[in-house]
């Protein structure tokens, strides 16, 4: 058995490994190299050292979008998880039409980001038109527009994960708590939540990275207007790379910094929530 595993390993692992190498590893290494280059197309890069990274420091739009993204990520993460958990709790109580509700909540997740962005742009602009404003009037409008959009899109998805977590909480634990005289709130905070901690880990992780990496919704909803003030990091990188002559390398350098940030946050976050998980 061991022997045949070894023998077949290349056959089964090769496609994945090849895809990983071609689709991730090589572009990643190339990306790091390009961030140290000056170039117009990726095929004609000229090495220039860390000049691109120094230019990031003097780029005000990058710093602004960093804070803007951080604020957006935190707000959307908290809102999505709290709301998704609430909906999941409600939809595990055995209300009539539970399945219909679950489907309805999950549906927005099936629509692509660009389409969603344009739909919400129309909707929100339609409302704001009553006040003679548009979504790109002020970056705060864009911010809350994005939050609403993301909540609408992601709550359903996180809800599914929470539902499966909640359904896996052993009934005897809840029963035991009830017999011991625990109030509903106590059951929630001392039994249910600790038991669904793995789901919380997954959901916070997903919403956190989703928020940080958000691109298409941002592009479609506001496209960074006004004055790049509603530009999230990913869009800022894109615009630096494609929007400015001679700044391709700087955009690439930003992408490397961006990768480090997302990786760091993800590692810290999984570590933190792991320690809270209950083994059973």
């Amino acid at each position, binding site marked *: 058995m061991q022997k045949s595993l070894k023998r077949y390993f290349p056959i089964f692992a090769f496609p994945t490994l090849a895809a990983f190498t071609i689709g991730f590893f090589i572009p990643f290494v190339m990306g790091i190299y390009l961030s140290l280059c000056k170039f117009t197309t*990726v095929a004609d890069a000229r090495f220039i050292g860390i000049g691109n990274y120094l230019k990031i420091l003097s780029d005000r739009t990058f710093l602004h979008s960093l804070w803007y993204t951080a604020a957006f990520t935190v707000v959307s993460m908290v809102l999505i998880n709290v709301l998704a958990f609430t909906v999941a709790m409600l939809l595990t109580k055995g209300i009539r039409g539970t399945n219909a509700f679950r489907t309805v909540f999950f549906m927005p997740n099936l629509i692509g980001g660009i389409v969603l962005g344009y739909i919400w742009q129309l909707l929100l602009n339609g409302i704001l038109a009553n006040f003679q404003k548009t979504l790109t009037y002020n970056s705060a409008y864009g911010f809350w527009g994005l939050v609403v959009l993301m909540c609408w899109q992601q709550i359903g998805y996180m809800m599914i994960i929470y539902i499966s977590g909640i359904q896996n909480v052993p009934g005897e634990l809840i029963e035991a708590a009830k017999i011991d005289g625990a109030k509903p709130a106590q059951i929630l905070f001392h039994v249910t939540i600790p038991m669904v901690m793995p789901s919380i880990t997954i959901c916070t992780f997903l919403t956190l990275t989703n928020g940080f990496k958000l691109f298409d919704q941002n592009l479609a909803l506001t496209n960074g*207007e006004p*004055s790049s003030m509603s530009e999230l990091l990913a869009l800022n990188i894109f615009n630096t790379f494609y929007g400015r*002559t001679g700044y391709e390398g700087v955009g690439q350098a930003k992408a490397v910094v961006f990768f480090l940030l997302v990786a760091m946050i993800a590692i810290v976050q999984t570590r933190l929530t792991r320690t809270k998980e209950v083994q059973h």
Partner: protein
Amino acid sequence: MKKKFISMLLAAALAASLAAGCGNGTDNGNGANENAADTGNNDNGNTDTGNGTAENDGALVDKVEGSVYYLNFKPEQAQQWKDLAQEYSTETGIPVTIETAASGTYESTLKSEMAKSEAPTLFQVNGPAGLASWKDYCYDLKDSAVYKNLKSDDFALISDDGQVQGVAYVIETYGLIYNKDIIDDYCEMDGAKIKDVSEINSFAKLKEVADDMQAKRDELGIKGVFASAGMDSSSDWRFKTHLANMPIYFEYEDEKVGTTDAIKGTYLDAYKNIWDLYITDSTVEPTMISGMTGEDAAAEFAMGEAVFYQNGTWAYKDITGNDVDDDDMGMLPIYIGVGDEANQGLCTGSENYWCVNKNASEDDIAATLNFLEWVVTSDRGRQVFRDEMGFVTPFTTFTEEYMPENPLVAAANEYIDSGKTSVPWVFSTIPSEGWKNGVGSALLEYAQGTGDWEAVKKAFVDGWASEYSAVNQ
């Protein structure tokens, strides 16, 4: 046994892909070898086709092996280009691929396409500023038929060492498109400030008339005098680029220069005046313009809801066939209250230059040059340019009968014939897109009331210097 079968299968797959790879390699090799002779023939061919017989075209280009890949800039003409390319291919056997970048994404599409091994052989830049990033990719068009057929060197991008890097293929004109019908109605009203549209020949007069018409907009049955000054990316270039052309042009005239590394902003007050006029006497509240698109403005004009619409000859297709008859369309110069307004003409120039990719194989370059030549010299190419694309070109081959039927082009020609001084498109000397975006954002914030005019000045003057140094370091 099974195992052997699987490994054989894998080996076969691998071999097949390798063979395919090699196959391509050899093809290219052969092509490269043959092509020296081909280009020679082709040069002869060029002179022949210059004489203009379609049969010659077909006979000679048969020897060209390459293919053409044109990355088209103008989505308005995407289908027309495809059809034209199809005809060329059937006639000559040279495959032509036409791809069109979506509106506003040309640079990004070009950047990724050029990195591919099957890169565009023909692409375009928007003038000196756009050329800056692509000059290392431009084939010298000095000996090409398209360059030889140009009316003057003004329409070519020529480097300091005499290389012809780009050739303009369409001349366009912009100004204030107006609806004659509504203006005539206005002239007949009591207390009208003018008796005929020709009396509008200065900014002061324009403002007087616009303000009066705005006050009487209900009686005139319009929503506003100027079509919405949308600052959505589909429309903001009308102001951050085309309107900004005016103060830049007058400053260049003063300084007697053609470009600069530091703009002074002498005529920014005039820029403010015209912008104020656009957003005040408008169809919408200034707080709404951030979301208004180019289609919105075109629709307002086409439906007769607005009288003036700042845009160019290319907009004809968008506004024709609705409420405004072609006879009722006219174009006025954009008066900003500076210079000799009585003799000011429309803004005429080009921001569409063809460049041939120097890194393409010689075969493909030959095929591309041949395609271009066919487009500008063959009867069919010229007909399509005139009838379907509606282009006015700077080529000598486009004689009188190849002028498109476009009332806006006719208006533009009238201005030139009457001896008015055309305003060149100096906006092609704007250092970067970053400058335009900075000015556009500041204009928007000023209009909305969330920013002040100082920010526009800063983006205009300081932004120019910093963008110039960033691009030219």
